[in-house]
């Protein structure tokens, strides 16, 4: 792009991140190497459940090039992996040990670690390690009665309960009750880069380094330091390029700890790269829930109460997220609708499958599907249109801020701003819903199976409470912004640079954003829960505002002018009337250096720190609309037309927002039609390659129409931002299910995602018969 836009904020500028990536000079975990490094390869349990008896590594140890093989005994001093939010006594017994000791609980569980001079040899050695296990029955279905996890412990560590009002009375007095049994299949983020971690002990500085980390560098540093008994001053995290996060990367996994302990004990850097098969069985799974949900409604279809009981399939252990996903599902289920009475019981169940945690829009992809199927079912039962039933229940703008007596992500739910009916109308008009309804009637008469789907949803973003940024202007005018943020590929640097540049008055291309470096800044929130744009950008704006003020103050002295007659444009302080001399930010920085005679009593440096604190999360919201066609001969579903209308409060970079929504949609489509981690009855994972775990390709993607609105800026931050990171994926399961169901006659036959052609074909053949 050539011309400078009126404001950097709101401009779809090209990304700062792109150049090294398009020329192949990125630095992903696999690209990080140190001299004399060892390669780690995990030995993983081939059994889903059993008592671990012996591990025989004799032959493996004898292989030339193998330096060490560790089992649980060798790291007996390490605790199981803790919860990110802190200790939880009740859930502690269900944490995952770094290496299995007494039991193995899922296929893929780390049992031993091989350290060798070369990754090929490490794999050869791992193949030679034999494991003796007394097999136990594998629990595959989270909705069956619980069984024993260990002494005095069942496979239901807890029930996540939330609610308000009088649910019993609500149902007793209801004229109409609708009841559904709905399931979301197990699937997850599956980024294109598998996990990787490199541990290195720099003895010269007594610093233990972890390279390749992502998402929450500072939080992880804290946790790792605690687990290893080191001060946080002696542990540093280095995040380079990250090939997608989606929630699954960046949590502390056994391998992260092992490379650090091994680097210390073996005295050599230790590199671990996960392969694809491992990723499918060992990186966090997600989404699998089964909801038995009832709604009590009045004769107009208005919700009186919702009573939901669900089974959350957590897999074998409770990992760093604790019960967060299930808790969030509980708190966010009502979406954009008014709901006088509510009760939800989330049965948090352990099974012998890969442990689960967060995946983009966690708790929301699932509950949007569940809640929107419920709304469609209510419409069907009462003979009201699916659009009308939603309209009648939407919270209106003048009810905002709308407090729900619920908690999501540890935060009380307060819907800050939103015009739900407004965006519904915009979406329906843009999609030409009415015209399409009439088209569809004609097409159905001609024998086609076509349907329209609709889903409304509220997202969450801007999880606080606090973030900070430090800005320093260099002598050549380059502006360095130090953040505790993280990049998973979403364009974090560019967005922060845009906000900094606009606030300070320079070109965004002169701004260098640092992230993922615990050694450069002491605190940070990383990047998750769609918070980076909200929190870090606002903190950056605060810091930039202070730098701007300092620059103007110094410039006023140097230019002998009144500060109120000055402004900053294009990296220089100039007079607002355009006359007279100007002075560049770089020169001002030079005048502020410690030995500068002009500095006066000002603190050295054209720099400042800024903090931003928020009381609540902010709530972007949207509507998704789809038109699908089913091939009656095969049951295949084809999305003909798709619209995502999403309000982000304020878009810093609309092109990046669009990219997030379209990319999220692709993942959501995967969950709706293609992706599933399947297990056989013995707990053997069946979806371990890209040939059986099906990610949408360009061919499966429809053209997606995106409508970004800024009708309801956030009231929780000065920039008015609500993030878009999870807005694309969140309602796709819901909208596709709605459309396919409509195509099959709108009889509530779609109660499960992913929707497979075989299932659809059986319904069609049944309908024809």
């Amino acid at each position, binding site marked *: 792009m050539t011309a400078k836009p009126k404001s950097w904020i709101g401009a779809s500028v090209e990304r700062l991140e792109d150049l090294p990536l398009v020329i192949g000079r990125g630095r992903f975990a696999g690209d990080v190497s140190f001299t004399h490094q060892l390669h780690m390869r995990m030995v993983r349990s081939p059994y889903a459940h059993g008592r671990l008896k012996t591990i025989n590594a004799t032959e493996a140890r004898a292989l030339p090039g193998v330096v060490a093989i560790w089992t649980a005994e060798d790291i007996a001093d390490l605790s199981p992996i803790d919860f990110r939010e802190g200790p939880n006594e009740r859930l502690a017994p269900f944490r995952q040990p770094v290496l299995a000791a007494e039991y193995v609980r899922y296929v893929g569980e780390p049992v031993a670690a091989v350290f060798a001079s070369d990754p090929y040899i490490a794999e*050869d050695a791992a193949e030679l390690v034999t494991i003796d296990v007394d097999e136990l029955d594998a629990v595959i279905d989270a909705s069956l009665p619980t069984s024993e996890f260990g002494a005095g412990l069942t496979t239901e560590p807890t029930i996540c309960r939330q609610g308000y009002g009088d649910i019993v009375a609500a149902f007793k007095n209801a004229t109409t009750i609708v009841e559904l049994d709905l399931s979301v299949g197990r699937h997850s983020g599956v980024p294109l880069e598998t996990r990787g971690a490199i541990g290195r002990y720099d003895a010269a500085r007594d610093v233990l380094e972890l390279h390749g980390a992502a998402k929450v560098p500072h939080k992880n540093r804290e946790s790792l330091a605690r687990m290893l008994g080191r001060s946080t001053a002696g542990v540093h995290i280095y995040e380079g390029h990250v090939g997608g996060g989606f929630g699954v990367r960046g949590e502390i996994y056994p391998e992260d700890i092992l490379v650090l302990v091994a680097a210390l004990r073996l005295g050599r850097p230790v590199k671990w790269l996960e392969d694809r098969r491992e990723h499918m069985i060992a990186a966090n799974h997600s989404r699998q829930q089964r909801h038995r949900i009832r709604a009590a409604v009045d004769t107009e279809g208005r919700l009186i109460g919702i009573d939901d009981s669900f089974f959350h399939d957590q897999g074998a252990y409770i990992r760093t997220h604790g019960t967060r996903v299930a808790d969030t599902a509980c708190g966010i289920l009502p979406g954009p609708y008014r709901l006088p009475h509510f009760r939800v019981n989330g049965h948090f169940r352990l099974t012998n499958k890969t442990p689960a945690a967060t995946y983009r829009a966690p708790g929301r992809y699932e509950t949007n599907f569940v809640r929107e199927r419920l709304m469609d079912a209510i419409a069907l039962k009462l003979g009201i249109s699916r659009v009308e039933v939603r309209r009648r229940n939407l919270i209106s703008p003048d009810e905002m801020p709308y407090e729900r007596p619920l908690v999501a992500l540890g935060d009380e739910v307060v819907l800050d701003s939103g015009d739900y009916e407004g965006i519904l109308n915009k979406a329906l008009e843009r999609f030409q819903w009415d015209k399409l309804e009439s088209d569809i009637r004609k097409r159905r008469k001609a024998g086609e199976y076509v349907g329209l789907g609709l889903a409304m949803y509220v997202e969450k973003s801007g999880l606080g409470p606090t973030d900070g940024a430090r800005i320093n202007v260099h002598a050549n005018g380059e502006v360095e912004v130090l953040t505790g943020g993280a990049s998973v590929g979403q364009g974090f640097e560019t967005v922060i640079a845009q906000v900094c540049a606009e606030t300070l008055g320079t070109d965004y291309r002169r701004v260098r954003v640092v992230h993922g470096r615990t050694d450069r800044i002491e605190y940070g929130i990383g990047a998750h829960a769609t918070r980076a744009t909200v929190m870090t950008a606002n903190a950056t704006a605060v810091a930039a505002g202070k730098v701007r003020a300092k620059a103007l103050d110094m410039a006023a002295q140097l230019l002998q002018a009144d500060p109120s007659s000055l402004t900053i444009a294009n990296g220089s302080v100039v007079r607002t009337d355009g006359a007279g001399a100007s002075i560049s930010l770089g020169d001002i920085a030079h005048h502020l250096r410690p030995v500068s005679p002009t500095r006066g009593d000002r603190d050295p440096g054209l720099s400042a720190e800024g903090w931003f604190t928020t009381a609540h999360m902010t709530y972007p919201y949207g509507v998704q609309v789809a038109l699908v066609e089913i091939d009656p001969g095969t*049951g295949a579903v084809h999305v003909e037309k798709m619209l995502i209308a999403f309000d982000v409060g304020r878009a810093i970079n609309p092109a990046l927002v669009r990219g997030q929504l379209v990319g999220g949609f692709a993942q959501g489509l995967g969950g709706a039609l*293609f992706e599933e981690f*399947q297990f056989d009855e013995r707990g053997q994972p*069946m979806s371990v390659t890209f040939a059986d775990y*099906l990610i949408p390709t360009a061919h499966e993607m429809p053209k997606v129409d995106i409508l970004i609105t800024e009708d309801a800026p956030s009231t929780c931050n000065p920039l008015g931002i609500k993030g878009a990171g999870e807005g694309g994926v969140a309602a796709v399961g819901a909208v596709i299910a709605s459309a396919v169901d409509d195509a099959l006659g709108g009889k509530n036959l779609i109660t499960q995602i992913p929707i497979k052609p075989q299932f659809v074909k059986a319904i069609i053949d049944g309908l024809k018969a």
Partner: protein
Amino acid sequence: MKPASFTYHSPTSVDEAVALLAELGPQEGRILAGGQSLVPTMAFRMALPSHLIDINGIAELAKLTANDGVITIGACVRHAAFESEALPGATGALLRKVVQNIAHYPIRTRGTFCGSVANADPASEWCCVMASLDGVVVLRSQRGTRRVPAAEFYQGVMATAREDDELVVAAELPMLTEDTRTGFVEFSRRKGDFAIAMALVTYRLVRGVIVEPRVAVGGAESHARRIVEAEDALSGQALDASIFATAAEAAAAAVEPMEDINNTAAYRRALVRTLTQRALEGAQ
């Protein structure tokens, strides 16, 4: 997912290759041609060959010729070769239709027709072509040359009549007459995935009546084959949409489909019906 160790051989002649195969075949020696099927299985360590005999350097195996009514496809002819407009006649047209369904472009630049034939995956499109056109597999060993018709060659899932010491040096397909109509349709979850089922049809019309019909189904059973019942339903019949439906029904009734975690026999049967009908309807 690194392969286990193997000794690598790169013969420059067919004689050299079969000599190596004679010695190493029984010692877990495998042929490396395109590698697009073999190497992934080695990466998963499901295949653990101690020897790999790379035949990509044998020039004579790269030949694709059409002579005397026969198309001869050498062992190293890549899938991509069949995208060419230069292939003659109705057979060429059929192969061009089929090849678009095989995996993706970068796989087709390396993978080979004969490699697919030898691998005998139930979902292999080329195996379906061989079965439907009664192709012949040419096998060479130190004991001589054997020519095995497709119907005898395919014995089950990944199981063929090839002996350990035999190299598939070529596959032969008849050149169909100019007036032969051909149709091919497959179904998979995503384009380029392994087919859950496929149907290949050919026929000629003589005075508006169907003659010499071939109906082959692949992907649904342990190996592709011609479905006689469907062919009988077409033979001598006037060209008519209802005849296609009858033949499709016959094909569906005749197959004994495989079951797997994702696809029931009933679903595959339904697909056979749909795809056979569509292949017939779309045959040109």
